[in-house]
């Protein structure tokens, strides 16, 4: 393949992902409201369109048509930059997540991943560690106490949980012996899913993912009763929509990472033994990936509407005194697996 072919194929993939992401996020908000309604025994949005299915578009237009307010004491440049950082980080992460195996289309071999880099997992870690900036800048540049407190809280929270997240990932890397997401998925052949082999690591990773995405029960940066809206108190219109979008995009990222690292990615156990033809296999595998991701997204929402928010000191204690030691324990467990069972 020439360089131009590579660039064009990558651009098509990027375009597809961005369009799909925007649609998915819009409907995630709809499902979040429907699921919360179901959990609280209400009906949820049901006025716009059939069963409220056009509600997301109504929401988006409402947000875009609102007045964009920048507070007088705000640092204008940073105030504008912050939501874009949040969005950039959220979208750039999709580049390395494989949604299926290599396929052949019109004579080209196409990987179902934008960039199959051999340090993919580190790339994701690098970008998520930058996610803090969007929130921190938003908090500081707004020139408001509530925003600043929200921003400071979130950076403390994200730094703390990044530690146990990194150590949980180390367990996965030890077993797959690679940092490439594609290889990690391939290493989980059959039922050798990391969620089954290292349940402790799975739990610590999922909990850290909740904290990293600022979702309930860890949504302290925007705890309404104490901080109004936290870091996005002073945001309105399109910029607020940016943060909103980034939060849901991050949730999808977290679900996809959990699927890739722990739930076998696009693998269906022993599908190659069934003797199906190749196209069907690939379609089923992509379907499996989307199904697992969708299940994790449902899990995110389920937890949000079931568990109350932690107090700040409880959050920090959980992060440093429970999750961190557990993730270390997981590494020891993986080492035992490797030494004793020669996995």
């Amino acid at each position: 393949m020439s360089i131009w072919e590579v660039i064009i194929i990558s651009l098509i993939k990027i375009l597809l992902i961005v369009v799909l992401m925007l649609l998915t996020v819009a409907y995630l908000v709809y499902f979040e409201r429907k699921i919360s309604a179901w959990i609280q025994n209400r009906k949820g949005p049901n006025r716009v369109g059939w069963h409220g299915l056009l509600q997301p578009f109504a929401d988006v237009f409402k947000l875009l048509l609102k007045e964009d307010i920048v507070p007088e004491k705000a640092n204008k440049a940073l105030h504008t930059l912050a939501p874009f950082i949040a969005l950039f980080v959220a979208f750039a992460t999709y580049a390395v997540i494989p949604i299926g195996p290599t396929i052949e289309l019109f004579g080209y071999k196409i990987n179902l991943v934008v960039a199959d880099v051999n340090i993919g997992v580190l790339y994701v870690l690098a970008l998520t560690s930058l996610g803090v900036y969007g929130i921190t800048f938003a908090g500081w540049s707004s020139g408001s106490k509530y925003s600043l407190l929200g921003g400071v809280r979130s950076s403390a929270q994200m730094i703390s949980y990044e530690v146990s997240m990194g150590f949980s990932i180390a367990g996965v890397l030890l077993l797959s012996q690679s940092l490439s997401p594609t290889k990690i998925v391939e290493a989980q052949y059959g039922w050798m899913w990391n969620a089954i082999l290292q349940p402790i690591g799975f739990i610590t990773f999922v909990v850290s993912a909740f904290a990293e995405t600022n979702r309930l029960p860890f949504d302290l940066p925007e705890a309404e009763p104490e901080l109004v809206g936290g870091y996005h108190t002073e945001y309105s219109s399109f910029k607020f929509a940016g943060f909103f979008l980034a939060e849901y995009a991050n949730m999808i990222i977290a679900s996809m990472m959990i699927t890739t690292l722990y739930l076998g990615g696009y693998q269906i156990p022993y599908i190659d033994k069934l003797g199906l033809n190749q196209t069907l296999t690939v379609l089923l595998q992509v379907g499996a990936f989307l199904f697992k991701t969708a299940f994790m997204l449902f899990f995110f929402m389920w937890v949000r509407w079931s568990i109350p928010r932690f107090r700040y000191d409880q959050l920090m204690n959980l992060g440093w005194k429970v999750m961190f030691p557990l993730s270390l324990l997981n590494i020891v467990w993986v080492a035992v697996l490797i030494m004793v069972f020669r996995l």
Partner: protein
Amino acid sequence: MNIEIILFAVLALVAATSSVMMITRKNAVISAVFLVLNFFALAGLYLLLNAQFIAVVQVIVYAGAIMVLFLFVLMLLNTEAEHQLFIDKRGIKFFAIFIAAFVFIEIAFLIFKSNPSKNLSPDQAASINSGTIQTIGQQLYTNYLIPFEVSGFLLLAATIGALVLAKKKFE
């Protein structure tokens, strides 16, 4: 023109501009923002040199961890007082200019005196290999095992030291 030269020009320009912007801003938080941008451009330059592991670690450690802590402190402190210090005392200003000029001459001398490309091997495959995480990991756990363990131990000691300092009363 090949793509590497274009990328190098863009990244180098970003790195140079952001570092100048960083030292000329009055607001410390804005300076920190430009420093983060500078780290990014540097990471890109490392990638061009086939040092992918260092590029990613540059972002994770410097941009992702250290600068966040810096910002944390800067946002909570009132940095106006430090600002006043440099305006009032002219002696400090001249001293700073002298030190800056000295360090600049030193660095410029070292750059033009040394020949950093003399150790480069013409073998491109070997150079790509030496930047991968596999090679670095293998080297760290074989040839450089003792320095690696020693630095790990030092970091542990520093962590404990920081804990002791932060906790005023140690029960």
